[in-house]
């Protein structure tokens, strides 16, 4: 099962079947941005909060 625990609020989140590494999802409970780090096993981490989210 692609189920992960939110590192911020510990909510249980099931990743979509088409989830990809590097994708950013939003925790449905606390709203924090999470980066999918791996799929097998499923793992997420807090996404970096950059002041500028774009490249140059």
């Amino acid at each position, binding site marked *: 099962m692609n189920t992960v625990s939110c590192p911020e609020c510990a909510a249980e989140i099931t990743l979509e079947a088409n989830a990809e590494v590097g994708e950013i999802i939003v925790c449905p409970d606390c709203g924090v941005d999470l980066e999918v780090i791996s799929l097998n096993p499923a793992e997420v981490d807090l996404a970096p909060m950059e002041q500028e989210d*774009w490249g140059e």
Partner: protein
Amino acid sequence: MMTQQIIVVKLGGTEGVDFSAICQDAAELLKSGQRLVFVHGGSAEANALGEALGTPPKFITSPSGYTSRYTDRKTLEVFLMAVNGKVNSLLTEQLHGLGINAFGLSGMDGKLMVATRKDAIQSVENGKRKMIRDDYTGKIETVNSELLLALLNMGFLPVIAPVAVSQNGEALNVDADRAAAMVAAALKAETLLLLTAVPGLMEKFPDESTLIRQIPQSKLVSALEMAQGRMKKKVLGAEEALQGGVGRVIIADGRVEKPISNAMSGNGTIIQ
């Protein structure tokens, strides 16, 4: 420090901007004692070289609406070849042909521009937000103004390619408009002139009759919301330049005769 009369001119890299007219205009201005610094782009050349080498450009859009060139290591090398290699050299050659002692350099030389690498940017693809961690682009933190002033005092026209060096010594692609803004701020330039292939910022792009002639610094936030695509970074650069102590910023047409003089006489979008 004698810095009042410096004009920093950014020559847009998109097709249509007349480098030859800008260089001829610069030659006359330099003769009359005007001090100039050039910063150039090179997006069209980088795109063309990338296509020829089998690494076509890829542009990404961030969730906040900014578009940028996806610059992985291979793209960075193409970017360096096109912008630092070709555009900078040929512009310097053209200036020498007019009797101007141009000094071509990139922001890496002598740590002219030191930037923080953006090692975690985001793109939106097919409705999904994705993290990109192999991008070699950066936000300029410092400009070595002593180096530029030394070159100016020696009578050179500095011609700067939009490449910076990171704190870890990596070459980085930087936005040429923002680079010009940082250079202008470091020199406390009188004017930052952003020459591009349109007459300035338009209220309803691409309708040139909706050109905005004046923007007070206090209205830049709404101008930033209105600006589309590449113009967004010009407005952002204008804001950074003014905050850094530049007298005024003019976004003006680089396709006309005497583009620098034309803009300095009040044509374009004047932001101050």
